Structures are given as structure tokens and as C-alpha cells.
């Protein structure tokens, strides 16, 4: 079953912050975040495992809330290069990318 991402789209100015949520009706074991720039292939950002710590990648970080069965991606002080569609993928306990179920994506637009 596909995880649900919210919001579907967000527009912000350079330097502003954004949060993208990924929720699942089933138990979450691992959450994989990808970013796809317009016309390009999706690219891996980070993975969060159940029981693991919050991850960070430059000014992009993510958390895993086991009780809510939700992961959130935080983009702070957004840059123009952050524009794109962000996908979360839910996976097995091991964190393997063997078989992921992706959400429908969140389109992020950063304006100058």
C-alpha cells in the first residue's frame, strides 16, 4: 500500500523552510527519501531505519516517528537547487532497497 505524502506541492522563497511528511497505514520499518529534479532520474537522499537516529544531509534532515508511523523531511534555508519532487519509499526492516513502495511525491518549488 502506497505511503501518503503531504503536502502534494509547496512553493517557497529562497531561505525559507519546508517540511514534507510521509505516512503509512502499515508499520514502518525503513523510509527512503529520493529527490527528482525536473526531467531527471530520482536520486537517493537518505534512509531512516526504525529505531535509528535522525539523519541529516547538508541542510536537509529527516526524522522517523514510530508511533505515528510517519517520517518527515526538513529542508531548512531552502536553496534554488532544492527544487524538485521528493518521494518517500517504505521498505523492509533491514533497510534494503530490495523492494520499495513509493508515495506519489511532493513537488517543491523554490523561488528567488
Amino acid at each position: 500500500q502506497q505511503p501518503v505524502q503531504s503536502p502534494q506541492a509547496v512553493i517557497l522563497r529562497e531561505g525559507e523552510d519546508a517540511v514534507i511528511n510521509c505516512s503509512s497505514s502499515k508499520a514502518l520499518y525503513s523510509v527512503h527519501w529520493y529527490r527528482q529534479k525536473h526531467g531527471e532520474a530520482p536520486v537517493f537522499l537518505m534512509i531512516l531505519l526504525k529505531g535509528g537516529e535522525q539523519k541529516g544531509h547538508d541542510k536537509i534532515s529527516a526524522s522517523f516517528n514510530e508511533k505515528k508511523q510517519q517520517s518527515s523531511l526538513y529542508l531548512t534555508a531552502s536553496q534554488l537547487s532544492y527544487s524538485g519532487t521528493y518521494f518517500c519509499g517504505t521498505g523492509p526492516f533491514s533497510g534494503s532497497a530490495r523492494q520499495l513502495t513509493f508515495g506519489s511525491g511532493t513537488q517543491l518549488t523554490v523561488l528567488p
Partner: protein
Amino acid sequence: DAGITQSPRYKITETGRQVTLMCHQTWSHSYMFWYRQDLGHGLRLIYYSAAADITDKGEVPDGYVVSRSKTENFPLTLESATRSQTSVYFCASSLPGQNIQYFGAGTRLSVL
């Protein structure tokens, strides 16, 4: 370092025709995947393969056929194309136990 390549990048075909999309990777990754990407649905798994001669259905396999006689190739065939198969198709690969899927650049298919 060629990575993962898809061909053709663009394809226009007619309803009822057979179409084969090619995917080739140079990393010797054992896992390979085919996704379709449609607006509002994100990435949906069509088929995946754990190794040569081992394939399995994903979320939306109907109307598609795959084969994997060699580790590096994973072609996707639409036996009788329908308009509903108009989409962008992505191939991806991964190593067992690895938590990253590497995506190809995609094939944009239009069925008229």
C-alpha cells in the same frame, strides 16, 4: 563509468504494437527494477528481478513482460501497447543489502 542506461529515451508507438524498452547496467548489481511514473501516482513498481532468470511481479504488472537472461540487462516488453501505458518508465538497480536504488534517465513512451 556508464552506470545504468535506458533506451530509447523517447518512443512513440501505436495501440496494439509490441514495444521493448531496454535497460543496461555496468555495475553487476543483482537487483533490477522497472517503474512507471504517472502524475498523481508517483513511482509504481511493475516488475523486479533479484538475479538472472529470477523475476517477480510488482504493483502494476498487467500488460508487461520482462526477462533477464543476463545480469546486466533487464528489458521490459509491452506485448500489445494500450493508451493507458503512456507513461515515463524508469529502470533501477541495487545491490543485495544495499539501501540505495540507482535510477536510469527514463524512457518517455507515448501510445497513440
